[in-house]
């Protein structure tokens, strides 16, 4: 069930009405749990049992870890939880990847095993909810959290429908305490939540989905475009599409939760204004970045700081992040590349600072920051070519054209793109303007929610009109559902 679909509209209205009418906490949460499982069942059918399995496993492992007296037992229970969760994830997401890789490696050595691919359906959002449940047991293991006594609360934490299939990855310490009190839909939360939901839907349905039309055509075969201009425009368009698609989903998820009175942390914080790759990952998919920081990077660095350990840990984290994003070598390379960018950034920090002083760039901090921002953006857009293109020959071609810019015939190339893709390119420009404006004037959605009902209604009407007029006629799935 997509957020941008009519069935979800009915679903959301029913949930909202129920919560408005029924005031008893127990029934509210029971209903929310039922609704969340229904929401998942609607798109994944019988695979909904995975959700139940994950919830049961971590509920009991969490309790067992907490109740265990010896460290050895604690480790055993943690291992059971991790093996259970990662085993499910590995089976559903990485089995075919492993088979393909085995076939590929064998073919390098002259063998041709032709291992057949397994018929496995990837459950929607499996990467998100397994990471979410794992954070619960890990937090208990690290003694940051006490286990909950209520399976109902825990099951709802795992399956809560707004963030179930594409995040944000909410920590138990953030959500479980909020499940203690009855749900009261206040005016303030309702207004704020609705404003955010509409903002997210416009980002997704108006900007991302319109741009997708161009991106899909372009990335089907980038070698069909001789110069660099279409490659650059295509890469920028894809960057904007992914951002609006994913951050739009996050906005809707956070907004829906807010309507019900739950506060979720921010998942995107204007990442395109980052001045370094390290900063970028503090602003892009924040819930995943912090997950990797707390549950992978920090444990890897526990034995003490050395430069070698730091560099290796960074590479492991970004390698894993790439693998988390998708079962393909392009994703792994994409993630590792970000680790390499980060390491280069760390290694050259002093040199870059000296260079800025020497070239007098540091005397013009705004200009200096602009250059840093543009360079960070350049690296990210470049990396997304690897993320989006699966065929190695396409990746090599596009990356080459992106790095060694070939301006020959640029006006003709642009001229041929414009009439064909006027709508997507229009929305690329619209996004750039809106993104810049909302960066300099922060809290636009919050300010709308704080206005009176008249202004708020005008805002909602405007957003609905944007959806009516400019959303494509075909419903497009959220890009991050595949992860």
């Amino acid at each position, binding site marked *: 069930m997509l957020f941008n679909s009519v069935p979800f509209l009915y679903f959301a209205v029913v949930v909202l009405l129920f919560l*408005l009418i029924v005031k008893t906490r127990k029934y509210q949460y029971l209903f929310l749990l039922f609704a969340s499982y229904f929401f998942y069942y609607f798109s994944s059918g019988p695979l909904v049992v995975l959700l139940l399995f994950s919830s049961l496993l971590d509920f009991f492992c969490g309790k067992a870890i907490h109740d265990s007296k010896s460290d050895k037992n604690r480790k055993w229970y943690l291992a059971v939880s991790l093996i259970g969760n990662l085993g499910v994830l590995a089976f559903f997401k990485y089995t075919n990847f492993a088979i393909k890789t085995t076939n590929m490696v064998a073919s390098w050595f002259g063998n041709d095993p032709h291992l057949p691919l397994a018929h496995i359906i990837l459950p929607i959002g499996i990467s998100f909810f397994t990471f979410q449940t794992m954070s619960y047991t890990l937090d208990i293991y690290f003694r940051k959290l006490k286990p909950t006594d209520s399976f109902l609360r825990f099951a709802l934490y795992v399956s809560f429908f707004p963030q179930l299939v594409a995040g944000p990855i909410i920590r138990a310490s953030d959500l479980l305490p909020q499940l203690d009190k009855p749900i*009261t*839909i*206040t*005016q303030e939360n*309702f207004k704020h939540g*609705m404003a955010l939901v509409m903002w997210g839907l416009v980002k997704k349905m108006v900007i991302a989905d319109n741009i997708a039309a161009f991106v899909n055509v372009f990335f089907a075969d980038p070698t069909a475009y001789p110069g660099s201009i279409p490659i650059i425009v295509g890469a920028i368009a894809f960057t904007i599409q992914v951002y609006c698609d994913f951050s739009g989903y996050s906005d809707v998820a956070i907004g829906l939760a807010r309507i019900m009175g739950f506060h979720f942390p921010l998942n995107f914080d204007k990442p395109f204004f980052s001045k370094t790759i390290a900063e970028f990952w503090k602003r892009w998919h924040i819930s995943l970045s912090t997950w990797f920081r707390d549950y992978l990077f920090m444990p890897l660095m526990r034995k003490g700081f050395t430069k070698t350990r730091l560099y290796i840990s960074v590479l492991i984290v970004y390698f894993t992040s790439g693998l988390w994003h998708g079962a393909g070598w392009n994703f792994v390379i994409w993630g590792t590349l970000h680790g390499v960018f980060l390491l280069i950034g760390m290694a050259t920090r002093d040199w870059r600072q000296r260079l800025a002083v020497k070239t007098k760039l540091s005397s013009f901090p705004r200009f200096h920051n602009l250059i840093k921002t543009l360079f960070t953006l350049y690296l990210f857009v470049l990396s997304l070519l690897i993320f989006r293109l699966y065929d190695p020959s396409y990746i090599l071609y596009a990356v080459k054209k992106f790095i060694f810019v070939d301006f020959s015939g640029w006006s003709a190339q642009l*001229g041929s793109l*414009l*009439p064909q893709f*006027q*709508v997507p390119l*229009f929305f690329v420009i619209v996004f750039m303007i809106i993104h810049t404006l909302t960066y300099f004037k922060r809290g636009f959605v919050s300010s709308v929610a704080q206005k009176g*009902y008249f202004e*708020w*209604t005008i805002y*909602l*009407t*405007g*957003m*609905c*009109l944007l959806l*009516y*007029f*400019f*959303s*494509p*006629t075909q419903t497009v799935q959220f890009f991050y559902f595949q992860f």
Partner: protein
Amino acid sequence: MNLKYLFFPLLAVLLSTGLYCSFAYNFSQFGAQGNHFVEVLHLYAEVPDGSILFVGDSQIREDVDCTVIEDLLKDSPPCFNLGVAGMRPFQVALQKDLIISARPSKVVIGITPASFDETINQNDDFFMLMSSSVTPSSYLLERLDSDELELISMNRFQRLLYKRKFILPYFLSFLHRSSSSEAVVPAGNNLKNPHQFEDIQSAEELEQKLQDPKVLGIFSFGDHPRREREAFAYLTASLKAEGIEVVVVQMPMNPITFNVVPADSLQQYNDYIQGLSEIIGFRLVNIETDFSAEYFTDLTHLNREGSRLLSERIARGEYDVI
């Protein structure tokens, strides 16, 4: 929170729906081919009884000049060129009842092997545009895919929603109208001579084009979907059953095409049309090879001179069409 606060979002939805619907209701710009097709749909109700209708895709639209035919044949019934670029036999078949209700004396259907191809001749918007005036027969319904079925059976509100597809492109088209190469039917044409293509492609360009398997593929009759043939047979048989004279014209093709397209593929097409003509009993006129390369703008469309020549030959009875 009180239930009454739900009133404001509801008001926003109602307001925006009302504003959008009132705008979309009056909006009627569907792009060059869409607008042209809407004119065709309107024309069915207005043509005088006994008219001659030329129907088909862009071959008909480009090649037939009804003003020339009417000028030369003073006493002939009125003639209309209803060719629309991208119109497939299946989509023409869906208009069968409209054609019959126009009570023409004769329907001339122009075809080439490319007419039966669904990769290049593809404009699904036509399904939506005719959804208010067409009820598909069960025979055609069975052959529609789910997307097409959704488009052809849209209700009024769904059509209004679908119209949003055309709104922004229409307004943005003002930005580059001067440089746009999209052909537009001349205003006040009355569907007599909607000739649009003026850019002439050289022999070298066309030969190079034919090296592309995708372009060559449109002439591979055997690879085209069966349903286009079935719809074509259904259309011709239905018109015949209503007592309407049906003439199928195998339209001219650039001689370059015959040098490249495999002969067996063309033979398969000829055999099929010939066989169908014998079964259904429509008159078949084959003028595929009658025009030299100088009369073409591209692989399958005649230029103005070629169009005039073809229309004169039709009017003078050199081709047994009228």
